[in-house]
């Protein structure tokens, strides 16, 4: 399918409610703000000290005093605030962030998440991820369903965990998976794929409810009518 990342970001955006305080990870999750449904305004929390992050500044308007968590130029919306790191993580651990959207290396059927280290290969560090998934009220994983065909949604994570039992929802180009006490439930799928194809791309056994919804890309208004940021 085309625009895989757009589909995922736009579908995640539908989970956010007006007024939510949201922290978005680097990469795909950042795209979520481009697809917020009509009438939904969120307050973006950046762990490096902004409550109310704004759009990427226009060329020539960048300041070395305003950067995002990836070190790129950032801005603060009118009515936003700057805070120090201890306060920022107090907001996170204290349950004041409604939702966090992150990528994953692996997720499993218990909602365990691994996204900070591949021992001996890649050691980026956890940054704020461990605090975010522990403290945020809702943890949404936004990622491509597989790593070039290799399943990332597993029976049991093999990489060191970022945190156990924290994931609420997994959104991929193939569908939306809810983490439940019984396992992973495919609550919605993209009919560009069959349910058999989705199961084949998933190591964990998916629970398929009778009323599993179909969601074509054309069913996501924000995806066709792309609006400007915020």
């Amino acid at each position, binding site marked *: 399918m085309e625009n895989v990342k757009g589909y995922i970001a736009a579908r995640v955006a539908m989970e956010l409610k007006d007024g939510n305080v949201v922290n978005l990870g680097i990469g795909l999750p950042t795209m979520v703000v481009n697809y917020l449904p009509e009438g939904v305004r969120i307050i973006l929390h950046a762990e490096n000290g902004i409550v109310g992050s704004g759009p990427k500044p226009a060329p020539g308007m960048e300041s070395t005093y305003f950067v995002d968590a990836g*070190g790129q130029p950032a801005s603060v919306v009118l009515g936003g605030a700057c805070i120090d790191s201890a306060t920022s993580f107090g907001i996170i651990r204290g349950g004041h962030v409604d939702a966090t959207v992150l990528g994953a290396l692996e997720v499993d059927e218990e909602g365990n998440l691994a996204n900070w280290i591949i021992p001996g290969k890649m050691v980026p*560090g956890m940054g704020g991820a461990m605090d975010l998934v522990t403290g945020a009220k809702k943890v949404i994983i936004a990622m491509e369903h597989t790593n070039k065909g290799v399943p990332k949604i597993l029976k049991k994570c093999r990489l060191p965990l970022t945190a156990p039992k924290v994931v609420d929802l997994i959104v991929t180009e193939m569908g939306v998976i809810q983490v439940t006490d019984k396992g992973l439930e495919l609550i919605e799928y993209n009919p560009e794929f069959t349910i058999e194809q989705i199961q084949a791309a998933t190591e964990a056994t998916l629970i398929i409810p009778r009323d599993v919804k179909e969601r074509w890309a054309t069913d996501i208004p924000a995806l066709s009518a792309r609006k400007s940021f915020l």
Partner: protein
Amino acid sequence: MAKIITVDEAAEHIKDGMSVMVGGFMGCGNPLAVVDALVRRGSKDLTIICNDAAWPGFGVAKLITNGQVKKLIATHVGLNKEVGQKMNSGELEVDLIPQGTFAERIRCGGNGMGGFLTPTGLGTMVAEGKQVINTNGRDYLLELPLRADAALIVGYKVDRNGNVWYKGNSRTFNVVMATAADLVIVEADNIVELGDIEPENVVTQGIFIDYIADPSRGWRNA
């Protein structure tokens, strides 16, 4: 009262083997001029405590490239490939700490606290060797305070008493680090008169500051 010195005089205070906190996040809020002076001075075997390693050729990354760092205590080093390479080759010891725990351990270090309880890291590698304490029916990890021999921070406006105001989101770890080291040096983007920062807007109070490093007094980019 804090004394105004040059960035090279500031670097003179950082001796071989010291532990040094460096404020900021991905270069924003990093005391770049003092770090450059420290590269020129060449102090060795440093333990650097900084959120990240920025990227090669910038900020604390220069100290790592220059072989001055024995150990790095950080939360995220993914944007500096050199750190990964030196870590894998055993040239550099790296301790990775969850970012909220990093901030709070430093806050405890500066605030006379014996540690704090956090749910972050439970059930992960971070919990290895740490005490788990249950309060009100929930498990927490006991995390201990973090202090350093010196802290290098940066402020946009610094008055002659050492009171600091930070611009944008450059305050990050500067605020807690200013409280948690035996020697604290603030690099001043601008040195202002007393009263130019309204008392209500002082973020880091001058009582924490030992020296104000003034880059306008001969900062050469290293």
